[in-house]
């Protein structure tokens, strides 16, 4: 949305979750920044091999957070979106013994997450605010407990190991496999980023902001708020599924923890950390989040949550635009 210079003058601050939205950052600049970020990610992955794993997970989570971003546009927080990520991940874990092909598993995971998103979405889009958040939370907890308790199928809290996968028919070596997953995650991230950008600029995407400001007015114009929200919800579920598939293929191990409510909280956390003003925000946030987590866990194993929580508090209290807000503020400062 940030690149639309022809945006009507009345669409303004409330469109962004944070008032200091990057309204002045053009498409060209955002694109350049995205390319720069992608190049930086590749460079880091090449220079520090073990960070490749961290970055792949960050890209995957960023994709899921893109979905959260859509709902945030409508002013709704889902405290249960990890259920779609877990659906994607468990789809891969369940099906991998029969179909080893990454390029088949990925769309299958997305399909199942989308179907679940449609079923859940039809129910939850009737609710707003706290009820919306809590219902998502409740349903994700149902999935969590099923994954935990149906031991015969899911191996409970032990989780399932994902066997080695094929990539377009070939079985790559470990190093190549890591690069392929990283590349796939990067490619999907860029694809979904562009999709979300186009969607948010479309009438359907713009109507989301209407749900946030004054839903009744939207309906006076003959637009079904539920349908608008449902579309966004299903799209976000699809992206959650893709993210989950990537997580399962990268970490090669899935546990019910993926669906626990704290995992959903992390996704919302990343959305705010990165800044909800741009499709780039989730990826900046996810990279920041995963890096802080890795280094905090290495430095003080017992207190990494404490450090992450403090970072979150500081961001909300002192940098409400997130990483993207700070970056775009600087970009505009240079005379946009």
């Amino acid at each position, binding site marked *: 949305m940030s690149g639309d210079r022809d945006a009507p003058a009345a669409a303004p601050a409330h469109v962004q979750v944070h008032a200091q939205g990057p309204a002045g950052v053009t498409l060209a600049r955002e694109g350049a920044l995205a390319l720069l970020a992608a190049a930086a990610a590749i460079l880091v992955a090449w220079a520090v091999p073990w960070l490749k794993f961290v970055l792949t997970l960050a890209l995957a989570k960023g994709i899921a957070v893109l979905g959260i971003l859509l709902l945030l546009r409508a002013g709704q927080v889902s405290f249960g979106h990890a259920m779609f990520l877990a659906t994607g991940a468990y789809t891969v874990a369940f099906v991998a013994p029969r179909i080893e092909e990454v390029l088949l598993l990925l769309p299958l995971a997305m399909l199942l997450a989308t179907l679940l998103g449609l079923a859940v979405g039809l129910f939850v889009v009737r609710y707003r605010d706290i009820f919306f*958040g809590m219902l998502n939370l409740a349903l994700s*907890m149902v999935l969590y407990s099923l994954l935990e308790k149906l031991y015969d199928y899911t191996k409970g809290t032990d989780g399932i190991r994902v066997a080695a996968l094929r990539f377009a028919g070939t079985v790559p070596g470990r190093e190549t496999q890591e690069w392929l997953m990283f590349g796939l995650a990067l490619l999907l991230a860029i694809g979904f980023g562009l999709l979300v950008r186009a969607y948010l600029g479309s009438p359907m995407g713009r109507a989301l902001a209407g749900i946030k400001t004054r839903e009744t007015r939207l309906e006076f114009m003959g637009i079904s708020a539920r349908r608008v929200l449902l579309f966004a919800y299903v799209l976000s579920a699809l992206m959650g599924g893709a993210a989950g598939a990537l997580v399962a293929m990268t970490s090669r191990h899935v546990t019910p923890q993926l669906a626990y*409510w704290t995992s959903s909280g992390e996704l919302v956390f990343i959305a*705010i950390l990165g800044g909800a003003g741009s499709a780039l925000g989730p990826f900046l946030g996810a990279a920041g989040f995963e890096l802080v987590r890795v280094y905090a866990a290495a430095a003080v194993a*017992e207190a990494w949550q*404490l450090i992450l*929580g403090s970072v979150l508090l500081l961001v909300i*209290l002192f940098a409400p635009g997130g990483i993207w807000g700070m970056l775009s503020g600087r970009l505009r400062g240079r005379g946009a």
Partner: protein
Amino acid sequence: MADWLADNTLLLGLALLDGLAYAALVFMVAVGLNLVFGVLRIVNVAHGSLFAIGAYSAASLGLAFASAGLPPWAGYAALVLAAALVGAVLGPLVERLVLRRIYGQEEVLQLLVTFALFMILEDVQKLIWGVQPVSQDLPMKLLGTVDVPFGDDVIPFTIYQLFVLPGVALATLIGLAWFLRRTLTGRVIVAVTTDKEAAMAMGIDAARVTLLTFTFGAALAALGGALASPTTSLVPGIGAQTIVLSFAVVATAGLGQIEGAALTSLLIGLGRSVAVYFAPEFEVVVPYIIMVAVLLVRPQGLFGVLETRRV
């Protein structure tokens, strides 16, 4: 059906007794959450951490009392004292330093601020009490058990769980209803809940009311934890579990309902413990199934009031 009942009387009886004790604890947490939401308009995700810290503090204090050679009944004083301490220390600290900065801001941010608090408190709790289970069940053992007749059988059940827990919950319910409706401070809290601006225009110090309410809510959560501590061994993660359950209660009951929260706690507590005995796989799912079923039929919750839509 009759045969089944005859075969399972004992289990059903146990489920009822367990459910009652469990519902009492859930109510203590949910009612605090509800009260805080009413005044602050913030759903406090860290409310469960206060429950956990209350529980751990009570266990530690109880053990300290015991090793200091105090008489066994001092264990009960330890429960109440720990809850009061946690409320009095953490309540003002959290409200003054953090929550006060985000009143009136977007819901997303408020939720996340309390989520950040949850993450922080969760680790603080692990740093203080470690990850090994902590238990101090003296207050429960001290009272012994009573034989509850069920059909032809009797169930020995602890007096603590049968009388003390529901008793405290009932006293809290009645006391709170009386406090909010009959005392000046209580009515001021209700006034701020109903219409903060109007209340402030009448000269009510809303900042003070907020501080008071949050501290009180925190103390209730801590008391819930303290009361729970003798019945179970404490492990990391109880805070996270408690909060989602009390969310379910509050959403099912409808926001701002005290008596409603009590009935819903009972419903969900009983539902859960019946599941524990008859379908243990679904123990964790039952509260949410109840919640989803209720919200399908009554979107504002069982006792909630529909708000008019703004144009």
